[in-house]
């Protein structure tokens, strides 16, 4: 089994011409493009179903509510959550992480309590904890990254000693490294800590089973998995969610409000204050249907093959000039390739590479990828990053490689 060869046809944006050339979109780790099915589902929602949810007493509102809750059920099935009510909708993964830090962290972390993260985290899994360091005096500990871009777990037990939470990415957005989440979760639980997983780069690309991960919290976002921007997910085990205080206050999240106070709605609505992003939930549901139809095993297989092709092609064409960070074995990583380029007269800065590639219609990301602590470890201030998805093929890699050659020419003497 493999992906359909005409899959690009499902993505209207890829039909556009840029600078007299086709669009080669290699920035899906940043945000993915959307298939027609997702765009249609969202338009259809507004054309046929739109009403506010959970409060209207008319048919249209009932259908809108069913659309929102139906999307929640699709998410739950997609990640093998034990219960649909364990799926909390947020704005994005960053908000999910802040919900975890503010609500769970607010109630459970005291001065001196430790939270363990890793050096390869996205800022979304760093800054909320820094904020608790400042506000509550918690301690933040870091799992180091080794030279091959893997977590160095040598001192894991010491790092976890007395910790309350281990929060780690399932797949690095810079290195592509796939971390052994079940092993980390086991170690965290053995130390009496809970396990949180930033799965933003993982859920779009690999079959996800939150129970097999052994995690207590799993966080991801819709827009990196073919869905729209504006919807994210926090999954957590039901008993943990039950015990957590609310996050934002307002409508939707209450059972009762009096002049003296309020009581909260049930989980998950306790965490969803205000009118939710219903069309975005519908879009995410359509994205999940689309990915399920393709088969996540096929998605993964395609990306491993294309990653191998990309690593081979770039290395053959550019030799020692290109250095690709992260695990050297494609099967051990996701389709994210961060690289530095040493031209004939020194390093070509990622910003300049991205500019020259743009002229050839090739979209890549340049910069620190919201992971400055990791960039320090890598000894780079910036890298260029290619991130692949289902609609990329070998011709995209060939165009990338050719455009890199012209960047080299331009910055050589």
């Amino acid at each position, binding site marked *: 089994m493999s992906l359909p060869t005409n899959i690009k046809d499902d993505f209207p944006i890829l039909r556009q011409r840029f600078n007299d050339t086709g669009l080669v979109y290699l920035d899906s780790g940043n945000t993915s493009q959307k298939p027609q099915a997702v765009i249609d589902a969202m338009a259809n929602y507004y054309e046929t179903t739109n009403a506010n949810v959970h409060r209207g007493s008319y048919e249209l509102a009932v259908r809108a509510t069913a659309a929102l809750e139906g999307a929640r059920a699709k998410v739950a099935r997609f990640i093998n959550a034990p219960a649909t009510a364990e799926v909390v909708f947020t704005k994005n993964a960053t908000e999910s992480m802040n919900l975890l830090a503010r609500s769970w962290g607010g109630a459970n972390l005291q001065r001196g309590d430790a939270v363990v993260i890793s050096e390869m985290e996205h800022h979304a899994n760093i800054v909320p904890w820094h904020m608790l360091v400042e506000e509550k005096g918690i301690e933040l500990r870091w799992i180091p990254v080794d030279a091959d871009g893997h977590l160095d777990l040598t001192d894991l037990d010491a790092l976890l000693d007395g910790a309350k939470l281990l929060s780690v990415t399932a797949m690095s957005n810079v290195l592509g490294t796939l971390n052994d989440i079940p092993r980390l979760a086991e170690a965290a639980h053995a130390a009496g800590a809970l396990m949180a997983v930033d799965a933003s780069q993982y859920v779009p690309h690999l079959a996800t089973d939150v129970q097999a991960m052994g995690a207590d919290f799993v966080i991801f976002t819709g827009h990196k998995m073919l869905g729209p921007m504006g919807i994210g997910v926090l999954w957590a085990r039901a008993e943990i969610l039950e015990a957590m205080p609310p996050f934002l206050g307002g409508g939707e999240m209450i059972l009762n409000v009096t002049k003296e106070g309020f009581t909260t709605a049930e989980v998950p609505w306790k965490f969803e204050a205000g009118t939710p992003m219903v069309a975005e939930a519908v879009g995410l549901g359509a994205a999940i249907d689309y990915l399920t139809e393709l088969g996540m095993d096929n998605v993964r297989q395609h990306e491993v093959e294309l990653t191998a092709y990309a690593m081979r092609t770039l290395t053959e064409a550019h030799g020692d000039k290109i250095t690709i960070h992260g695990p050297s074995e494609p099967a051990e990583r996701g389709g994210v390739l961060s690289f530095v380029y040493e031209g004939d007269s020194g390093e070509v800065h990622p910003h300049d590479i991205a*500019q020259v590639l743009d002229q050839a219609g090739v979209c890549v990301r340049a910069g620190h990828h919201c992971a400055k602590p990791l960039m320090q470890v890598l000894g780079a201030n910036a890298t260029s990053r290619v991130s692949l998805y289902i609609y990329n093929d070998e011709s995209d890699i060939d165009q990338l490689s050719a455009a890199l050659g012209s960047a080299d020419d331009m910055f050589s003497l």
Partner: protein
Amino acid sequence: MPGLEDLYREIILDHYRSPRNEGELETPPAVRADGFNPLCGDEVVVYIDVDDEGVINDVAIGGQGCSISRSSASMMSAAIKGKSAAEARRLISAFKGLMSIHETDIGGDGSEAETGIADSEFSIDNTDDVALGDLEALKGVVKFPVRIKCATLGWNTLAQALDEALPIQ
């Protein structure tokens, strides 16, 4: 879309490959200011040594970044060395004027008439300094709006350094 030759002019690449005044100065007597572009991770360090007369006797540029931010800082260093702080401040204003772009201009061909950037706004006291000619080469950056922050990074950092060296009374 404008061509890359508008951005990567030969003089820009020359300053990138052979940056002027690269290095550090001892602080004190020099002052140091750090500038960051949080979007891309570029960092520039500007050192200036201002004497009692308010003249910038020496300047050094540290940090790292892309061709546009490095060449702009390099040209800036050449342009301000030996100038008074007041002249340097006028140069900062003039350069930032050169880099300013109005929404209605985006999508145009970037000609002077369209961008509203007339030579008169870039007179910079009409000195004969060669470095001023170099700076004109950065005009093409306005056609690539995402790169304007690269070009202005060094200049904003110089403004910080001047404020530190000569606090406004």
